[in-house]
């Protein structure tokens, strides 16, 4: 039973980790959690669905289109809405993300309706591979692999490419970055684009499992946020580890202790962690930007 529970935890944790990573990379640039993250990903998943069912394109084209849309949506959100605010405070920005999420939710309800839909996907949630006593769906295997590879790519991007380093520089100190010739404004927009793409990958992997409707990413956003707080809001690696940890703890708790309090336990752990380590399990002590 234990390996089965760990496998389920890892699969759920992959989604949390992706959402946590998406949240953290924009959080580091704006110091504001983007609550529209989930619904931006949801709308992008609907775009893929539209291509698959209305225009009957192949998976590669549909998913590609969704990711491009997600990127533009992310950049557009930053450039057209967040950046336009005059003298933004944290509260203003948070309210803007909340407003945007409501608008997206309303839009999806109006455009596609609230019915649950089966989301077509190349591999199935009901097709099972067995490793000894562990049965795991091909979708879960794909989720774990794709999430893992994507996250490695993102880290490699931040570490080894010029643009990635410029992004990190902007996150640490936008003014110093600009003095050194980094186009900081463009970089911030780009960060939102990349974050939106990562969230959309999570959405595309979630939709075939739990069916597609406008509430698709509610749970994932909440858990991703929790994972990011758990691991540390200012460390992408920490947030990702937080995601996996959360998925595994939840499943262990559900299987051995109480299913009823499975969802609550995540938040309980966070309260405890924050009590002892306010910057999260893996976070370095937070210093305010000037």
């Amino acid at each position, binding site marked *: *039973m234990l390996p*089965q*529970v760990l496998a*389920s*935890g890892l*699969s*759920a944790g992959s989604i949390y980790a992706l959402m946590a990573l998406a949240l953290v990379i924009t959080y580091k640039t704006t110091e504001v959690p983007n609550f529209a993250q989930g619904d931006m990903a949801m709308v992008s998943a609907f775009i893929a669905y539209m291509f698959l069912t209305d225009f009957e394109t192949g998976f590669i084209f549909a998913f590609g289109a969704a990711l491009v849309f997600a990127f533009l949506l992310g950049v557009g959100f930053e450039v057209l809405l967040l950046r336009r605010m005059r003298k933004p405070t944290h509260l203003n920005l948070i309210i803007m993300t909340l407003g945007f999420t409501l608008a997206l939710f*309303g839009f999806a*309800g*109006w455009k596609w*309706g*609230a*019915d*649950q*839909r*089966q989301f077509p996907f190349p591999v*199935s*949630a*009901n097709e*099972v591979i067995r490793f000894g006593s562990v*049965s*795991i*769906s091909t979708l879960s295997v794909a989720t774990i692999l794709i999430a893992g590879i994507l996250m490695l790519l993102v880290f490699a991007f931040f570490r080894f490419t010029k643009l990635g380093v410029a992004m990190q520089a902007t996150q640490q100190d936008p003014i110093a970055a600009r003095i050194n010739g980094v186009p900081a404004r463009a970089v911030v927009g780009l960060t939102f684009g990349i974050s939106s793409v990562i969230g959309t990958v999570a959405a595309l992997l*979630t939709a075939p*499992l*739990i*069916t597609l*409707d*406008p*509430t698709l990413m*509610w*749970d*994932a956003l*909440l858990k991703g946020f929790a994972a990011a707080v758990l691991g540390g809001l200012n460390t992408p690696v920490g947030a990702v580890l937080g995601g996996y940890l959360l*998925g595994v703890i*939840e*499943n262990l*708790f*559900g*299987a051995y202790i109480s*299913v*009823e309090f*499975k*969802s609550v336990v995540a938040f309980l752990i966070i309260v405890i962690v924050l009590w002892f380590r306010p910057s999260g399990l893996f976070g370095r002590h937070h210093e305010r930007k000037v």
Partner: protein
Amino acid sequence: MKSIRKNELYRPRMMTFLVFASICMYGCSEPIDEGGVRGVTDDTIVIGSWGPLTGPAALWGAVGRGIEAYFEMINEQGGIHGRQIEFVLRDDAYQPSRTVAAVREMVERDRVFAFVAGVGTAPGRAVVDYIMENEVVWVSPATGATHWAYPPRKYLFAQYTPYFDEAAVLVDYVVNELGKTRIGVIYQNDDFGESGLVGAQVALEKHGLNVAEAVSVEVPDTDLSSHAVRLRESGAEAVLMWLTPRHATIIVGAVGRLGYEPQWLASSVLADTELMYDLTEGAWEGVIFAAIGELANSAHPLIEQYREASARIAPEERASEFFLSGFRYAEPLVEGLRRAGRDLTTESLVAALESLDGFQGIGAPLTYTTNRRQGTRATFLARTIDGEHAERLTDWLESGVDIEQVIQRLEGSN
């Protein structure tokens, strides 16, 4: 300049004018009731309803649109005693606070004569006292909770078979007909889910059995792997699910991945077989579910008539179980209006509804008397087959469970 304008508002004459104007406007928008009956004129009857047309529960918005199509069909046939039905449908997004506002508006501004359906237990409970105080007839709340007819209220006529009755009938069937003794339950952790759990418990106790394992699901949960493991470990041969379509899809998938194959038993909330087959990619095969209305694919003459009418009136709608349930909720109201005759008053409608004795549309036979306000407690069972539709297994059945016992347990658990 600006400050002077602001001050003008505080002048007594200006204020008087504004107050007068607003009273006037409010007064003008109010329709005048002929003969003093609210919502009834020489050639119209105003009927109201509410439902989640937007928001996370908007799946059930189809109920209200079904009612609308039904009334339009009745109007096409010439209305009722020379009167056309005007239907007012308000969106509450399944939020009780918005239901309260919508219902007040319908009573005070739109002056509705009666209410029909209204989706959801929590929204309904938020307005039931207000509707009763205003002496507005309310037919068929669209929920199987026990709060409507127990105790009976003069203006409230319930139709939806209580959820616990469905659960008890399902359990009796698998124990008696299929010989299963280990029954598990997976239920949504709220009023709706607990009704299913209590119904199963009470029915099992009659057979000297207990629930093998009961696991609850919170509404936002999306990962049900540990629920599946718990059910498998319990060795349950049949599992009763009191869930929404999304959670049902997730748990059927999670259980299937473990190679565990219990007999699934489902509530009438999951009776939309076409939808469930689609969502589960075919894993919905062989599920036994409770139904409280004729199935959407049945050859029942009324269903055929309704399907034909909805294809004509609302071609964009799928004639799903939820959509057709709107027709079912409105049937007894229309029958009552017919029996009340041309001299329509609230009292004559109540008397007409109380005269229904075994009246049947596409639901179970309905009977109301002066102190019986739950029209039926019957359900029938069906099984999904052939990867696309459902076959009827039984005739209308009643569980015979003592309702007072169930209500006590439900109140005890809250």
